[in-house]
């Protein structure tokens, strides 16, 4: 048997890889890296190859290495020489001995591994490929990022090949190409551009859009400090909109007679969500607690109520405040607060839901019981911690509950009514009122025993409060909650297609925040945003990222372009793009978490509201925002200020189409603009005279912001 290099093993044990990555700081190398290792792939050989030699790369492009070699678009920084900064180590490069070893190259930063291969007749030593930073005791040091290595398991075929990448998601999915993950192979120096790109990406995931000032701030203080700053920021509070009766009095109308005062538009301002919706945008565009608001917006799309049913402005404001208050709190408290909210009670018929009534033949309403389980907590299938379906012995997915559990929970949640209107006597069915929590009316509560989840039985004799507590506990403690809610939060903050391992890491934190607490959302959010699948300088995984939902596309544009707005224009814009704020068509939100791209198994929740009509509408909204000098205040809105953008930083460089494109690449696409796209933009900008920087700017911004490369955040 040929004596050939066994599949070389990574020099870091796999199990420490994640630990060191999670703590990885976001800082650039003090000195800019001096070379770039460019990755190639050969479609015939199915082999990867990297080189830091510009001449060698050009030669491969020209066919010198034979047919089939193409650049993958991936690269990582290295050092050309060993003395550029202290503590560098060489990376040895080997080639399979012709006629003996594989037709493949191998690279290692481990001197022991290099030495082993030097003793192996299957490999020829090709010398030092480039230099990288030495690992620190705890992993890759500050100013560097991990290079992950996977192996094609080619030893039995004498066809060993490895891939080296700094894209964690790509590495994590290499199993689809028959590769096995091997861990961290070396530490690549980070350029300042790479660090800035990831700072921007973090802000796309954690805020309503990166402003240029905030990009610099994150670059300066790093990810962890930024998150702590956000966790500590004071929570946005919706204004205390005045209480109004559920049924609009005849005296409450919209009066357009000037002067417009705070009471002029009584009907619109109290009996639609207009004021709340524009306040949502004002807060999103300018308040400091960006991460809290962003998480609240995600939660409001999981635990949905909607103006489609409850169009009482003060009531919906109080409902949405739950998510702002609890965004970094405990999920069990959210489940409880939502369950006793009169807005939810009204929306999903838990309010005035009575025990079985033999006189009129009614049974308890099942609406809330069903959606509490299906949508707000556990879903319809039993899940593994990584979000995959748990299978029975025949390979069939198992339901989490059946009609009997729904019936059990519906009975357990009987007897709740609206909070009593101030100054009125309580009744067993109070009239609609959204101030305060619902309260239990024992005479309407079913006191028989009820079936809960996982075969638990609620013993007879409970009251509204004790049965509520038992229901919430039964649901909250179901093992599905971590993967079910965790995956959706990942999708709403980071990427539509997280790997199962990413879901499992987040679910584990949901299950236990490290201090034995289950459901700690602050810990969950931190885990989501610091995960190596969220962070990192390069994202080439073809399923990475998410389509920006209309709300986020609009706020991202606004914050990138220095907006100042009273929220009216934004509120109107997202309404036209199938995402009317707090107004989802049903409790299933604007789109389902498991929606896929047309004809594909790749998830794309937000694609459920992207179609031929709405995609043109998106472009046209961007057109009207950019090509209006300003959006004037709406005369019907008391205190309106309109909407203006500040394009001056772009206009200042717009005389040079190249500089304009580069600026947009940096701040809007974090460096992902291709040469081809840049050429298209430069040509179009140059169709306008250099004496007209405003329209050159508009042209450039329109092309970038309407492009799928901006619409998909990655």
């Amino acid at each position: 048997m040929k004596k050939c290099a066994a599949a070389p093993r990574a020099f870091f044990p796999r199990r420490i890889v994640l630990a060191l990555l999670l703590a990885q700081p976001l800082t650039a190398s003090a000195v800019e890296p001096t070379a770039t290792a460019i990755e190639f792939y050969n479609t015939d050989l199915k082999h990867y190859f990297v080189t830091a030699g510009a001449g060698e790369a050009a030669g491969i492009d020209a066919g010198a290495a034979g047919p089939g070699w193409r650049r993958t678009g991936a690269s990582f920084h290295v050092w050309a020489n060993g003395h550029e900064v202290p503590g560098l180590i060489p990376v040895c490069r080997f080639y399979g001995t012709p006629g003996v070893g594989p037709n493949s190259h191998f690279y290692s930063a481990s001197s022991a591994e290099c030495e082993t291969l030097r003793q192996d007749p299957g490999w020829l030593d090709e010398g030092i490929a480039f230099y990288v930073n030495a690992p620190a005791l705890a992993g890759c040091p500050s100013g560097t990022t991990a290079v992950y290595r996977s192996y094609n398991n080619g030893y039995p075929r004498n066809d060993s090949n490895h891939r080296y990448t700094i894209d964690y998601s790509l590495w994590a999915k290499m199993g689809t190409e028959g590769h096995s993950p091997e861990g961290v192979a070396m530490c690549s120096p980070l350029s300042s551009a790479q660090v800035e790109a990831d700072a921007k990406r973090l802000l796309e995931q954690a805020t309503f859009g990166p402003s240029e000032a905030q990009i610099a701030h994150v670059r300066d203080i790093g990810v962890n400090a930024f998150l702590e700053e956000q966790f500590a920021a004071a929570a946005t509070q919706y204004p205390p909109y005045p209480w109004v009766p559920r049924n609009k009095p005849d005296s409450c109308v919209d009066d357009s007679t000037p002067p417009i005062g705070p009471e002029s538009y009584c009907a619109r301002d109290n009996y639609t969500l207009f004021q709340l919706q524009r306040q949502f945008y004002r807060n999103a565009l300018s308040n400091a607690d960006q991460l809290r608001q962003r998480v609240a917006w995600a939660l409001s799309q999981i635990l949905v109520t909607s103006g489609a049913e409850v169009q009482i402005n003060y009531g919906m404001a109080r409902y949405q405040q739950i998510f702002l208050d609890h965004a970094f709190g405990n999920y069990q408290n959210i489940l409880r607060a939502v369950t006793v909210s009169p807005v939810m009670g009204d929306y999903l018929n838990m309010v005035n839901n009575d025990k079985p009534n033999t006189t009129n033949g009614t049974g308890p309403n099942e609406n809330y019981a069903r959606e509490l389980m299906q949508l707000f907590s556990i879903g319809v299938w039993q899940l593994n911690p990584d979000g995959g379906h748990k299978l029975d012995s025949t390979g069939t997915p198992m339901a989490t509950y059946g009609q009997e559990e729904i019936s059990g929970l519906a009975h357990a949640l009987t007897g709740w009514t609206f909070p009593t209107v101030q100054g009125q006597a309580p009744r067993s069915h109070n009239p609609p009122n959204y101030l305060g929590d619902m309260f239990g009316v024992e005479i309407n509560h079913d006191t028989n025993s009820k079936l809960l989840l996982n075969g638990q039985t609620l013993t007879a004799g409970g009251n509204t409060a004790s049965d509520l507590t038992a229901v919430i506990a039964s649901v909250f403690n179901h093992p599905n909650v971590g993967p079910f809610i965790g995956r959706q939060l990942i999708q709403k903050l980071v990427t539509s297609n997280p790997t199962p391992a990413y879901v499992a890491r987040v679910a584990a934190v949901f299950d236990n925040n490290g201090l034995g607490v289950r459901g700690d959302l602050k810990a969950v959010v931190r885990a989501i945003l610091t995960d190596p699948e969220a962070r990192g300088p390069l994202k080439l995984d073809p399923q990475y990222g998410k389509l920006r939902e209309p709300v986020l596309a609009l706020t991202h544009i606004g914050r990138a372009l220095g907006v100042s707005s009273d929220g009216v224009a934004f509120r109107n814009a997202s309404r036209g793009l199938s995402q009317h704020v707090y107004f989802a068509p049903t409790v299933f939100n604007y789109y389902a978490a498991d929606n896929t791209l047309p004809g594909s198994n790749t998830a794309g929740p937000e694609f459920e509201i992207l179609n031929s009509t709405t995609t043109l509408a998106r472009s046209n909204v961007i057109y009207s925002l950019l090509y209006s000098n300003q959006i004037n205040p709406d005369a019907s809105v008391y205190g309106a200020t309109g909407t203006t953008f500040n394009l001056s930083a772009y206009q200042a460089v717009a005389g040079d189409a190249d500089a304009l494109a580069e600026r947009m690449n940096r701040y809007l696409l974090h460096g992902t603009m291709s040469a081809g796209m840049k050429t298209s933009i430069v040509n179009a900008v140059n169709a306008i005279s250099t004496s007209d920087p405003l329209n050159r700017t508009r042209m450039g911004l329109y092309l970038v912001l309407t492009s799928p490369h901006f619409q998909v955040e990655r």
Partner: protein
Amino acid sequence: MNTRRREFLRRATALTAGGLVANLDLFSLSAWAQTALSDYKALVCVFLYGGFDGNNTVVPLDTAGYAQYAAVRTSASGINIAQANLLPIQPSNLATPYGLHPTMAGLQTLFDERKLALVANVGTLVQPITKAQYLPGLIPTSLYSHSDQQAQWQSSVSNSISRTGWGGRIADAVAAANAATTFPTVTSLSGTALYLNGSTGTPLALPTSGSFGLSGIGTSASQVARFNAVNAILGLDRANELVASAADITKQAIDLSAMVNGIVSNTNSSIRDLFTGFPSNNSIAQQLYQIAKLIEARGTTGAKRQVFFASLGGFDTHGNQTATLDNLFGQLAPALKAFYDATARLGVANQVTSFTLSDFGRTLQPASGGGTDHAWGNHQFVIGGAVNGGAMYGSYPTLAMGGPDDAEKRGRWIPTLAVDQLGATLARWFGVATGDLATVFPNLQRFPSSDLGFLNLS
């Protein structure tokens, strides 16, 4: 079809248990190439989101039948419809009369004129089952769940995940008929839906009002430069699947906008007067009006076979059911009647068949709060000149809680017909070859008949 879509299809097929998803290559496309198609046909699906209450849509009107209804749907429950308020119809194939919801005068007329058929107690099924077989594995997955049952109605696959719908697969099967035009076979007036997804082409989703095109398009140098750059960028850097998908959707919209805008914005349609009486917030009337205009413009689009999709939501009547149904059926029924009248005026009444679908039916037992809960089998309407109307197909269930048709105890009807059979009857009329039916409806062979007889195939 580009390679990317083909690749997706292959994966979708591979990942579905039992290979249930249609494989385009199985279709006998050559049969189409040999047929000179000078005719035109359209299928119009009207999906009633939320699961409408069939028990208050079609009610037995004979004394015994109504008494069974009223014994459960008590006056005190708040959702009883008085016998005198129901609109009587007499199915030609049955001995006893039934009553339609009081808002459905237009549908009553179509029934009397034999242009409308009722399909009773149809639903999602894995296979025909009896009450004794109401067991996991033999019944659809996630029964009574909106999202799952919508998906199963729209895909006809009730025992696994399908990434395509039967509207899209019907379109795939007749694709050759539209080979001469780039206009997609599938057109939605209600955004995206699983029903629409096939493996050939991206469904077109058109607006119910307003124009369809990019702002700022013109002939000035900068406008031309912008338009060219938009198109160029849509073709670049498509390695990311989400980017490529967004680019495909946008490119199709831009490419078709000039042709389509003239149709959807047309205010001089010959059938305009049939829809002018509807308030602007009657979405289903607006959608059906646009569909009628697209049918009218079939000479412009070049379409020979069209699969349309419209929808009306809000049928999840857990509470306040009476007022909600009065409102929604009050929008739906006259809109369906106007649409039939439009096809008659356009001379294509025999070539256009409309039908309703919905998540599920609702419990016969009222729920606390003046509503009903999620159930299973339901009754659907089929309308058109080719319909063998004035009759009720299938068997109307016995309205008794815990009775022979009840899956459990609140009046959830076990369907006696499957969506597969309903769809196959429509597909056969539409021109899907008999040999292709099993590809469009992968579980069809489990049911006794693939032609329920409500369409005239001659």
